[in-house]
């Protein structure tokens, strides 16, 4: 169908409105209450146009095209209606703009700049309306509201939650909830669609949510922004809600190759930033990841996941088969490079299979996920300790050092630290996971109060030992509370606020640990020496048969490894003097714990992604490692859920302490289908808001 707008003939179909046709053909018609995604309401009349044969101007947004229509946008009659409509809107609007947080981004401001209308000769009918900042996440500053109704249409038609509507409040028409109840009571799902469509900043995010430091998308979806690997969390939770866990795992695998492992042990920093936290408590994002991985039957993502780019003929060697090495290996293989991973221990998986206890992350779960990586063609060679990276570089195009921090640190300044029965926490964990036996005897004293200490304690309890954990910090504040309490429940004893003096021995065998109590302690900022506020003559001996140091881990690298290290044994790049992905040897890269020190699994994987992209560019590739594995749909119509704001967070159930301390099966029970579904339903789906299209400003049209 053909119509003529401002004597430009344009193509269009039946059922389209004049406004849609004009905007599509780069012809600007001023409009305010029509939003690209919403049904027209025809209320504001700013889009009036003159149509040949019609005596009075018609609203372009709600007048449908007919064959051969001749339309003039800026005709005299249409302009008069438009100008008067604009003046009436401004007459009911505060006459002072400069105090408004939306200044500069406000569509009404752009409109009066374009039309030049001013309400001076009308009565000023703007009445004071107190700002309502009591609701979580959303502020109502209704004195600025021009009652265009876009938020009403968004809430009722686009989202189907039906919370906002026109209300008669104190003899005036205002937008609000029924009888003025709070958003939570009215059933609001805090999806933020009303904020996105509001042209004048009457409905805005709470102060502080949107800042200049982060981009708008990161501020709106803080969980995805906080996750070091930027996993698209709302999307996979939505997939879990709809019950197809394979799409959920596909979405997770677009960023990380170990969904199940992360679902078990990730330190979920994303949950601290989850906006649901402002309502009651955050989504349990990690447990949902685990739920998805454990219920992914069809693995619909696999076919695309293992497809690799054509061979580039480049060979890459990766030293260290932990999370970081395998992830980098996977991505480099996907880019078509020939990848070989050298792992010193018997099985790959690094920390996941030898640095954490089996009851937190079972070995089979990790090996299943490693198998998937091997299916892409990554070759993994176990029991092969690489002595010199520079040497290895000779017969490979690029080398990645990803050995993590797999050597436990012993506090050698403690007298008796060189006795035979003194081990490190990693030895304990490897003993159980790799079947190496050490002479621990019956009672074991663990020195150190971090998570690794309590992992070792849990493992030793399951090996039938009596365990004493000795640490400086009050209530072992260094560890995550849940892991500390779990170990203590299983029978480990805690000696907090204790400082060690010496390891005692009796005829060449460890027999006790000499300690004293302290009130508080601190580290000298530059020399890192320990400063204690000791309690006088509180020294006594805790008898034991062996000592386990859980006082941090190091890389265990020496200069023999062939690359420049700093005094703590971490590789550095001479150009910057700091630990970087690049090292002193050209073509040799480093990533994960080996350059950042002991961090969490997700940090190692995120580091691997960055270094993989860097190495691909080094090897001549484009460095693009993002991939789309599964189709997913984001249905904007989310509907009503009664009592949505109050839905409680589903906690993970732990097996009973007595029963779980006897075996090495996973100590927590994953979500049931019903639990998984209703936890996933709590998600505010903050990302839906980003799919709302941006309204047009006159400056967008040349």
């Amino acid at each position, binding site marked *: 169908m053909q119509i003529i707008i401002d004597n430009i003939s344009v193509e269009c179909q039946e059922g389209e409105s004049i406004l849609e046709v004009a905007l599509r053909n780069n012809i600007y018609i001023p409009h305010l209450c029509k939003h690209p995604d919403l049904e027209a*309401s025809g*209320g504001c009349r700013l889009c009036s146009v003159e149509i040949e044969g019609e005596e009075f101007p018609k609203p372009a947004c709600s007048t449908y095209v007919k064959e051969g229509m001749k339309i003039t946008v800026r005709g005299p009659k249409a302009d008069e209606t438009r100008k008067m409509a604009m003046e009436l809107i401004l007459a009911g609007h505060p006459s002072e703009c400069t105090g408004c947080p939306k200044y500069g981004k406000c569509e009404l401001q752009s409109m009066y700049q374009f039309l030049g209308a001013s309400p001076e000769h009308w009565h000023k009918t703007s009445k004071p309306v107190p700002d309502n900042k009591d609701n979580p996440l959303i502020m109502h500053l209704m004195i600025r509201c021009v009652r265009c109704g876009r938020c009403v249409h968004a809430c009722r038609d686009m989202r189907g939650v039906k919370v906002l509507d026109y209300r008669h409040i104190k003899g005036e*028409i205002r937008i609000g909830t029924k009888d003025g109840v709070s958003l939570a009571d009215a059933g609001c799902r805090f999806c933020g669609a009303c904020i996105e469509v509001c042209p004048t900043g009457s409905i805005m995010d709470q102060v502080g949510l949107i800042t200049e430091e982060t981009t708008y998308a990161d501020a709106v979806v803080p969980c995805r922004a906080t996750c070091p690997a930027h996993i698209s969390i709302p999307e996979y939770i939505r997939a879990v809600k709809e019950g197809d866990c394979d799409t959920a795992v596909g979405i997770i695998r677009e960023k990380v190759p170990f969904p199940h492992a992360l679902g078990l042990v990730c330190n979920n920093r994303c949950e601290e930033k989850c906006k649901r936290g402002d309502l009651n408590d955050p989504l349990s994002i990690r447990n949902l990841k685990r739920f998805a991985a454990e219920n992914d039957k069809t693995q619909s993502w696999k076919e695309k996941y293992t497809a690799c780019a054509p061979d580039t003929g480049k060979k890459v060697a990766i030293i260290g088969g932990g999370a970081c090495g395998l992830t980098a290996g996977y991505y480099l293989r996907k880019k078509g490079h020939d990848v070989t991973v050298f792992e010193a221990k018997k099985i790959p998986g690094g920390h996941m299979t030898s640095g954490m206890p089996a009851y937190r992350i079972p070995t089979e779960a990790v090996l299943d996920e490693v198998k998937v990586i091997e299916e892409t063609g990554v070759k993994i060679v176990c029991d092969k300790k690489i002595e010199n990276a520079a040497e290895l570089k000779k017969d490979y195009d690029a080398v990645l050092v990803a050995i993590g921090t797999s050597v436990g640190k012993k506090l050698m300044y403690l007298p008796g630290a060189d006795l035979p029965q003194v081990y490190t926490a990693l030895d304990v964990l490897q003993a159980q996971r790799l079947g190496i036996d050490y002479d621990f005897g019956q009672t074991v004293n663990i020195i150190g109060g971090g998570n690794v200490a309590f992992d070792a304690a849990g493992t030793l309890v399951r090996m039938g030992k009596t365990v004493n954990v000795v640490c400086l910090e009050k209530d072992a504040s260094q560890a995550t509370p849940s892991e500390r309490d779990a170990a203590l429940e299983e029978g480990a004893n805690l000696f907090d606020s204790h400082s060690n003096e010496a390891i005692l021995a009796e005829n060449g065998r460890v027999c006790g640990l000499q300690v004293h109590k302290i009130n508080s302690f601190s580290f000298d900022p530059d020399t890192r020496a320990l400063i204690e506020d000791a309690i006088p003559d509180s020294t006594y001996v805790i008898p034991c048969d062996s000592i386990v140091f859980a006082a941090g881990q190091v890389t265990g690298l020496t200069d023999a490894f062939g690359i420049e290290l700093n005094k703590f044994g971490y590789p550095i790049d001479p150009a910057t003097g700091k630990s970087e992905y690049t090292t002193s040897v050209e073509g040799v890269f480093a990533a994960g714990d080996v350059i950042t020190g002991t961090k969490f699994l997700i940090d190692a994987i995120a580091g691997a992604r960055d270094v993989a992209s860097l190495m691909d560019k080094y090897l001549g590739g484009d460095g693009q490692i993002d991939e789309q594995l599964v189709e997913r749909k984001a249905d904007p119509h989310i509907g009503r859920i009664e009592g949505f704001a109050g839905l409680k967070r589903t906690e993970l159930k732990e097996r009973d302490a007595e029963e779980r301390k006897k075996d090495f099966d996973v100590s927590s029970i994953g979500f049931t289908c019903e639990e998984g579904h209703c936890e996933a339903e709590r998600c505010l789906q903050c990302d839906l808001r980003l799919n709302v299209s941006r309204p047009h400003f006159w400056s967008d049209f040349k």
Partner: protein
Amino acid sequence: MNSFNLEKERLEAYAAKEGKKLLVCEAVHPLGKESVWIDAAKDLIDSVEIVREKIGAEKALVLCKGDGKAFEDAAAGKAIEVKTADDVEYGMPFMAPTAVGRYLNGEQGYPCLDKPICTPDGELVCAFLPSAIIRLSGKLPETREFFVNDTNKVTVKQGQTWAEVAAAGGVAEARGVIAGFPDFDVFGEDELAQSFDIWSLEGDEIEAFDANTCITDVALKLITQCNDQTCGRCIFCREGTLQIKLTIQDIQNGKANMESYNLAVNLAKQMVHQTLCGVGTQAGKLFLELADKFGKELEDHITSKDCKALSCKKYITYHVLQNLCTGCGKCVDACDEDAIDGKPRFIHVISKIDCTKCGNCVSACPEGAIVKAGKIKPPGPMRPIPCRRKD
């Protein structure tokens, strides 16, 4: 005749459509009063039957407020259901056909784009006002009930003149009659003698006023009704009715000028075509007809500050007639602004500045010596002077 809803066209359009249909007779009174149609329930239900066949609808529905008993009795045995729509917040916008459609879908009854709307179980909603149904059925009863000046219900026979209706409604020598919402037809003094077809009116309200009611009060009352009932979706209705209301108030208290008056007239011209339902359109039409039929009186208020009906406080002053005042002082006690000064046996004087024109003193004066005055002021002393009357 109100050209607003072209009933015949809509009837044919509904009839032409296939599929399930529902005829809705929308008897919710615009201002929430109990429906005038309760007395004529039987005639209404018969007409509903006729129109239902005409458009081929299986069922019909009568919506009303308060108890629908009269309708239920009349509709017994017929495929007509009666529903009390007490949660309809505002009546005027509800009279738009699209509003009924939204209401039956559980939304608030406000007008929206004129697209066919179906009920949740798929029946096309065909909505008419009771008077429209009677007209469309062709069976026009001899008499019809109207509210005159909101309160007294009047039965009007076919062929009666406006003057007779006004008198029946309690306004003896009416000088103007206005048909209520949604017609808003204005009849000046010279047209009161004409008879009218009782079935040509949409609404069931009539406003009649005589010489001592000022046209601005009547206009203010009707426009305020519209402004209270606006649903807020259209700028020209929500803001337009408010601006016209404030302009009329300005005319009443002397703040208007011809420029702001003409601005309101231009606004009314726009309102007539730029709103989605009758409230904005008819409010514009009302102001235009008032400006046309009573324009002179409005302009007198503005330019010569004169209110013939002596009701706009700004333009009237109260005076003590020197030949009747006996100096009894009763008026002083009645005035709570102590705006009247005077001593016993002295002619009292009302101070221009403090007098708030509440009028209490007029009724308090036993001699009837206090009168209102417009442009021409009765002579009187500036300060209290001894009474001259000798009785």
